[in-house]
């Protein structure tokens, strides 16, 4: 019975939740977004520094469960240096991975550790939170950047 649990909480996830990468506010952020999970009250703030269409740097802050924190942390590693279009594609594929346990079109690299989430439907939202925030930040390009 622990197979499901161990699939969900892979060592990589535990590790990233305990010491999240890029866990900082970017002073040079050109876009930011807030992610909020009303189910649990968790919040994350996401900071992007864009170079044209490409994410030059990224950081996040906030509180959350192991899944949402690890997801945000691994996201920051996965999207750095990627274009907006690439990130949108990743978003779709991560969503497939989280809801179906697999995704078409090749390996998602380290993000594959989230495949176990699909057996826990209530937790899909947690893993998607940072991805939604990233899209919101990318789409909010006409909005003035608030550093607050």
């Amino acid at each position, binding site marked *: *019975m622990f197979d499901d649990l161990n699939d*969900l909480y892979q060592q990589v996830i535990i590790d990233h939740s305990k010491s999240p990468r890029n866990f900082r506010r970017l002073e040079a952020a050109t876009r930011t977004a807030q992610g909020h999970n009303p189910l649990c*009250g968790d919040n994350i703030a996401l900071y992007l520094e864009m170079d044209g269409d490409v994410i030059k740097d990224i950081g996040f802050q906030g509180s959350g469960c192991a899944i949402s924190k690890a997801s945000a942390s691994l996201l920051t590693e996965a999207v750095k240096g990627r274009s907006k279009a690439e990130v949108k594609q990743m978003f779709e594929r991560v969503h497939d991975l989280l809801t179906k346990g697999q995704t078409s079109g090749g390996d998602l690299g380290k993000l594959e550790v989230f495949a176990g989430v699909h057996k826990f439907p209530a937790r899909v939202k947690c893993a998607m939170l940072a991805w939604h925030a990233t899209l919101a930040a990318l789409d909010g390009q006409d909005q003035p950047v608030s550093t607050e």
Partner: protein
Amino acid sequence: MIAETAQLKSKVSAPAWDAVRADFPALHQTVNGHPLIYFDNAATSQKPLPVIEALDRYYRQDNANVHRGIHELSNRATTGYEGARERVANFIHAAGSQEVIFTRGTTESINLVANTWGVANLKPGDRILLTEMEHHSNLVPWQLVAAKTGAKLVYLPVTGDEGLLNLRQLDAVLTPGVKLFAFTHISNTLGTVNPVAELVERARKVGAVTLVDAAQSAGHLPVDVRALGCDFLAFSGHKICGPTGTGVLWGRQELLDAMPPWQGGGDMISSVDFFESHWNTLPHKFEAGTPHIAGAIGLAAAMDYLDAVGRDRIWRHDQELGAYAYESMARLKGIRLFGPKVGRAGLVSFLLDDVHAHDVVTVADQFGVALRGGHHCNQPLMRKLGVASTARASFYFYNTRAEVDRFVEVLREIQRFFGV
């Protein structure tokens, strides 16, 4: 025929708790390979056979609309529905069944008062006193009515993790400008039991009307609206062994009589003209449209069941289990417990160091233990406690010490799993 007096299936007079458990089919299953331990009773309770059977019987034999038909089935449905109202009146010691309004739940009951009594009586500058431990359903309706009327919200503070109302500050906030004092009987997050009668008496001295949120108390201890002295009392059927979608607003007749109706439609009128209508008498004035007839009948069966077990016994059992759980959990390392150390209701909110509430609940579920994790519809309180969420175990009379022991073992497993 309908609304027969429910008997404990097991026909025990002094409750043999094992026999009581046997009446709840949903308790007897395995979840993720483990016997279910259902500790999410503050969210909703499980249903005993007499309630399930009352719903079944109604739909099989008696289903018809109420108050409008002349035929036999309609008579039965009306008798069942109005009989249920009598049962509720008797359950809370109301002066009469005309003071009992059926609603969809606590939330709708409070919204009804806010939108009728509130809109009719609150003026700019008036104060609405709430406490910091209110559920969103006893908070947001008042924010809405404050925005509509210009009244102002004021809060009685809670004392940190111990979660008691800070009664020393009551005088400071319960000023003559307070027109309404709305507060919960038992906190769904902290397990605090508030001194209702005392608060009501203090409110009456400044002329404030009182509303008690009895969502967490009505099915757990004897509730007597006349002894409490309040003006309104709201609760949900689904938390007290009844069907979902049922609830009660009790109000003092003088107040209900003076209040305008809320929703308009069938059943709530005595006569309708093209340009104006005359309202029906209580309680129908507040029940527009076809009500949840089966639900009310099921709720009456739930009340019969609870009284057959005995609400005083249920309360003793809840409190003993709450205290036992609190003491057992307090022996764990790396746990933060919320709510009063003594005198708590049958629930415990907690956090394990370095493990988020969601992760606790997910892993507990793999052991068959149903908990709740989140803000429990108490976001302002959570903020005050400086946490985003907590995990919560909440008990009812069918839960056992053995289940609590197993639950505490599972908490240890969770700590091991996350390496804390």
